């Protein structure tokens, strides 16, 4: 009989790490040590330590030496609101740096209930396989019949075979080693960024099926329930809560459009001329009904979408998340309905939507510039030509024709064309997300430059970003705060640091100082498995998380120590990146942002560099090279990687 009792002695944590070597089908169990838990918490913290300890320097990302780690957030499986997130990491085939991505839903809960806080995958299987993990046991199963199938067809088969299980899997793009392939998390979610699906594909690993009934024992049930309710009340009273509950992440689409801060037609226009009418809220709401939540979430920001008429009639899926919608809608100039179709294709093929939209937008621009032509592609390309874009997407997933070049990602593909670099919108090899730093310079946009995974917007966001204002009178140093004392007080941040970061008198936020805090805060969320949606980021901070962590795990930790653990993981990843060859000059936006204006604005390279240096200083890193300083490493108990 399954799940007879909880075998683990540890509280909160499942207590074990499962390591599988696909080359010899060997599996090992490792007990979690309390110090390791306290120092690295879980999620991205575990992943960073495991990868830095066990991966040799300079390996090829698509080789068997790469290590893929699924780290479940500490609070996952508990009643703490939004605790559902699992971080997946490996060396990225796209950037050559630390590749990492975060996703929610129910995978982490199942992995923990199956008895594991992390799953480490090494080696390469001889032929296609999938893993089945259930209640402390793992089997490596033949996946020949699944190889070549798209992710939804594969899921139909696996979900029928293993009722109630959660599945992480790759689609054809991952099998074909498309460098920005993602790992799908069930039908509609993914660990998308940095090409982790290609890593899974390179290991001949099609899917990971997880089911567990073991249960997690909290250290102090009463205290956990109490702190969960406290956190819930905090989130529910954030002014960001209601808007996010009703409209999800699409809230950002219109303000960023009006700031001319979107990726319109490959970052050439700031905002499409018909953006406001085509992507207006009533139009989006007409297609959506119902809200969908991840484990333990009280917000439920995701929508169910059904298209009832027109060319894409009959399409129904979970969508209208701002990232795919704007990446395709604005970046490639597609219609609202077509973005749903594109998202469906992205899910079925298993590709990161930001990256695939980015590389296609580059191809269309190269076509416009006459650098590639109809002969190279096989058909004409144009912004807004849905059919051509779908055809190109299909070519990329299957590495056909020009698709084979584009499947290498924006940075590598651009090198194949004379003058291609001018159209390549990426930072450190990772395609830029849909926000244009020229249109709105803020903590969020500096974060794209400082992100440990390259050009991405999800690891640094001002917890009290004010979307009503967009003022650029601060010389890149500050952004407008724009809230009252009450909002200031509600922010869970050490008083001294808060006073440095936010100046109520001048109503400004210091971008460099806030970036450092926001990154550590989000890294903390990604360690303990809490969501980064604005109502959570605004109200949940180290104080309440320390209470929750101690109640759940029984490990005593102070808010300061908790932040330090998050900072430790961030610094460790930076050390990994430096070891893998990251150079100071890589922290730079594409030339276009410094040379061409959009909406009358552009970036001043010297001033951006100055803010970057201030950020390094705030982090305790060398101001010129961005290397973590000896003092900082000592403080965090880290040493340089060799």
């Amino acid at each position, binding site marked *: 009989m399954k799940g007879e009792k909880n075998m683990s002695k540890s509280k909160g944590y499942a207590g074990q790490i499962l390591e599988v070597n696909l080359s010899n089908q060997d599996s090992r169990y490792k007990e979690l040590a309390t110090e390791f838990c306290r120092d690295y918490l879980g999620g991205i913290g575990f992943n960073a330590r495991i990868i830095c300890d066990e991966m040799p320097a300079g390996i090829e990302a698509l080789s068997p030496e790469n290590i893929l780690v699924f780290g479940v957030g500490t609070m996952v499986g508990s009643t703490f609101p939004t605790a559902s997130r699992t971080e997946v990491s490996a060396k990225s085939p796209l950037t050559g740096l630390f590749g990492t991505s975060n996703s929610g839903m129910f995978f982490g809960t199942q992995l923990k209930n199956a008895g594991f806080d992390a799953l480490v995958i090494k080696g390469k299987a001889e032929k296609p396989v999938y893993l089945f993990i259930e209640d402390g046991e793992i089997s490596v199963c033949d996946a020949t019949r699944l190889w070549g199938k798209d992710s939804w067809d594969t899921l139909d088969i696996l979900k029928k075979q293993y009722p109630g299980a959660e599945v992480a899997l790759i689609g054809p793009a991952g099998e074909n080693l498309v460098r920005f392939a993602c790992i799908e998390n069930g039908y509609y979610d993914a660990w998308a960024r940095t090409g982790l699906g290609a890593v899974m594909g390179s290991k001949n690993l099609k899917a990971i099926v997880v089911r567990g009934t073991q249960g997690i024992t909290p250290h102090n049930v009463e205290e956990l329930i109490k702190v969960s309710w406290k956190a819930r009340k905090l989130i529910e009273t954030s002014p960001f809560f209601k808007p996010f509950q009703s409209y999800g992440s699409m809230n950002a689409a219109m303000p960023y459009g009006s700031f001319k801060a979107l990726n319109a037609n490959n970052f050439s226009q700031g905002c499409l001329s018909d953006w406001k009418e085509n992507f207006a809220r009533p139009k989006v709401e007409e297609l959506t009904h119902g809200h969908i939540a991840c484990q333990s979430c009280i917000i439920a920001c995701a929508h169910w979408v059904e298209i009832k008429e027109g060319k894409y009639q009959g399409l*129904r899926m*979970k969508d209208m998340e701002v990232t795919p919608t704007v990446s395709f809608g604005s970046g490639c100039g597609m219609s609202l309905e077509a973005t749903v179709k594109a998202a469906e294709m992205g899910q079925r093929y298993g590709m990161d939507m930001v990256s695939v939209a980015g590389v296609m937008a580059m191809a269309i621009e190269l076509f416009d510039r006459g650098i590639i032509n109809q002969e190279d592609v096989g058909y004409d390309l144009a912004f807004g030509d849905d059919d051509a874009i779908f055809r190109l997407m299909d070519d990329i997933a299957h590495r056909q024709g020009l698709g084979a070049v584009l499947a290498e990602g924006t940075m590598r593909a651009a090198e194949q064309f004379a003058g291609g670099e001018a159209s390549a919108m990426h930072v450190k090899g990772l395609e830029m997300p849909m926000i244009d730093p020229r249109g709105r310079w803020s903590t969020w946009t500096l974060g794209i430059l400082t992100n440990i995974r390259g050009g991405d917007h999800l690891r640094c966001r001002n917890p009290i970003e004010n979307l009503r204002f967009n003022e650029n009178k601060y010389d890149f140093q500050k952004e407008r705060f724009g809230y009252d004392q009450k909002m200031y007080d509600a922010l869970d941040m050490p008083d001294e640091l808060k006073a440095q970061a936010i100046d109520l008198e001048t109503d400004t936020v210091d971008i460099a100082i806030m970036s450092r805090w926001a990154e550590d805060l989000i890294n903390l969320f990604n360690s303990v498995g809490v969501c980064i949606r604005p109502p959570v980021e605004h109200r949940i901070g180290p104080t309440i998380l320390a209470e929750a962590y101690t109640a759940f795990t029984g490990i005593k930790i102070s808010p300061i120590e908790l932040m330090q653990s998050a900072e430790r993981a961030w610094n460790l990843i930076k050390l990994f990146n430096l070891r893998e060859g990251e150079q100071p000059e890589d922290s730079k936006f594409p030339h276009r942002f410094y040379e061409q204006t959009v909406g009358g604005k552009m970036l001043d390279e010297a001033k951006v560099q100055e803010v970057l240096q201030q950020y390094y200083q705030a982090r305790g890193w060398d101001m010129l090279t961005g290397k973590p300083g000896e003092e900082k490493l000592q403080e965090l108990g880290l040493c340089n990687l060799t």
Partner: protein
Amino acid sequence: MNKHLIIDSAKCTGCGLCELACAINKTGQCQTYLARIKIWQEETRGFFVPMTCQQCDNPPCASACLMNVISKDPVTGLTIRRLEGCIACRACQLACPFEGCSYDYLQEVLVNCDHCEGNPECVKYCPTGALRYISTAESMDLERSAEAGRRCGLAGLVKGDRR
């Protein structure tokens, strides 16, 4: 019975907080498998249906029980069990059309919803009002029949997937 646990599946987001709230309050474990309320999901159609004991007037679980441990409480009207007599054969689970009986592997018995002594934890946790605890008079409206119809339809026609 003065009050009923009413489920409006149209409002359910599938967050699973009702399951967790039930499990943690009844067993001290974070494991939805132990909950007495379960969310059935039709993932590719975007809807979720919480299922729990319907406190039937003439419960099929009681008829199916080999040990005769299930009965109706004459005062509260709830379906109750004499747990010490349960042999965990799961006949009640098979007989219930609503997935209302759960196996509690910690006690090695089958259990069902007991309305938490008039203060159901799942209702407190539900963030959208998909679960409500209301009086008989309130619950005897059309909404309830409509919901029953939806759920019977789901149980019979759609192959749902229980998490």
